[in-house]
């Protein structure tokens, strides 16, 4: 790596301090093992990396590659934006949509109709997409 001499010292200082903080976290994890259940915790922690890097990300690229040739050039920008925003909103609200947290004894938990809410949000997103798409279609050379 061609990093400037000055930042080398900064880098190793940050490495030392950062790993000290990491070590504190690992110590706390095992020191509170009855609550953190390290064997389970590690599975979910490393699982987060594996699922993102080897499932979610490749799928995202695959969808992009699949769609890029199938959408007219002048509609690509708005539809790409619409798809990114939609995917983020759906992913974030997934547990609510599935209602995993619903409790028969507590109707105040997850009180909304989340599918209806999602429909409204996605309609708004795609309305913006449509406006941008129409404008860019008109402006095509």
């Amino acid at each position, binding site marked *: 790596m061609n*990093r400037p001499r000055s930042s080398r010292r900064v880098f190793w200082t940050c*490495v030392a301090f*950062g790993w000290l903080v990491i070590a504190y976290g690992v110590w*706390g994890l095992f020191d509170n093992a009855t609550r953190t259940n390290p064997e*389970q915790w590690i599975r979910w922690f490393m699982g*987060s990396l594996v699922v993102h890097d080897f499932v979610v990300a490749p799928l995202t690229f695959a969808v992009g590659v699949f769609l890029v040739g199938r959408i007219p050039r*002048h509609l690509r920008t708005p539809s790409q934006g619409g798809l990114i925003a939609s995917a*983020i909103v759906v992913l974030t609200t997934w*547990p609510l949509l599935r209602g995993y947290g619903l409790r028969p004894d507590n109707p105040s938990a997850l009180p909304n109709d989340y599918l209806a809410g999602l429909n409204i949000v996605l309609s708004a997103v795609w309305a913006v997409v449509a406006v941008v798409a129409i404008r860019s279609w008109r402006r095509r050379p």
Partner: protein
Amino acid sequence: MKSRPRPRKGPLKDGAFTSPLHSPRTAALLGIALGITFTVCFLTGVLSHFIQQPPAWFTWPSRPAGLYRVTQGLHVATGIIAIPLLLGKLWTVYPRLWQWPPIENPTHLVERISLVPLVAGSVFLLFTGIANISLWYPWRFFFPAGHYWASWITMGALIVHVGAKGAIVRRELRGRDPAGLQVTLNGGLSRRGFLGVLAGSAGVLTLTTIGQTFSPLKGLAALAPRRPDVGPQGFPVNKSAVSAKVLGSALDPRYRLRVTGRVERPLILSLDDLRTLPRHRATLPISCVEGWSATVDWEGVRVRRLLELAGVARGHSVRVESLQPNGLYRTSVLNSVHADDPDTLLALRCNGQVLHIDHGYPLRLIGPNRPGVMQTKWVSELVVL
């Protein structure tokens, strides 16, 4: 004879990732935004942890009454904002995962190893956080402990990352970059367009969830796990009487409140006794660690008043015990500042009605500037420490 290297395939191939959005500048801008949101999220989270499990040097004040509602609302809001930022950032730098050769030198090795806790921790924190506010627990560990210790590991890794990338970020931010508005080769989003979409997504998520704590926007809270005005007597419940297993004991006519511990005169009070004591009214938020909050009118007996009756001087902390037979939130501690605050009550009524059993009938603790889990419900005993 030198053997020819095998041709690299798939993501390892030169030019496998064509989008110019995979640029250091995109990464730098998203990195700064993530650095800010993660820091705010970390500090507010550690604060909440200290309030609930205070170290010896830490005393959480009882004023301003709505401070915890703000810090914890901020914790959840910044966590939600970080979701599009993190996904965008990881997408931007994804080609680096497949860089060839994978390790260039010892410095680079240290840098890359530190990315494991950074990426794993970032995804883990946002995933477990979102699942928790959605009341979904697919794992077998105690969420607050697992989330808390993961945050230290992630922040440590973030410090290493800032050390590794700080120089690049500074270089990228110097001067204007005319490429920002250019449409990419395939007619896709420009960099500003991409960042705008991520910011817009964060905005949409914020607008549709923040109403769970910021009531002027409650009408927009279509995707919030709670609504501040939905629940018995007009506000949400986190733990019901059924799940706390107090239905029998809370409705038992033999119910008594005890004031014990380091007291001059132990007290045993029936509900009728409590009802004859001077009442105090206070409008205080109930602020959940999960990011929702609601303002409620409470009416009840001052804790300070009960301590006076038991002959307890000012300056004592008090453990508040519930009828709940078990559970980590069965008790909470009022530090002396909270115990002596004139608005810290054992409430008998809320919003003009006798407490609903899910809100802690016959008696619940409510005090200014406290996490909801420390506003103990179904109170059976005050133990003066």
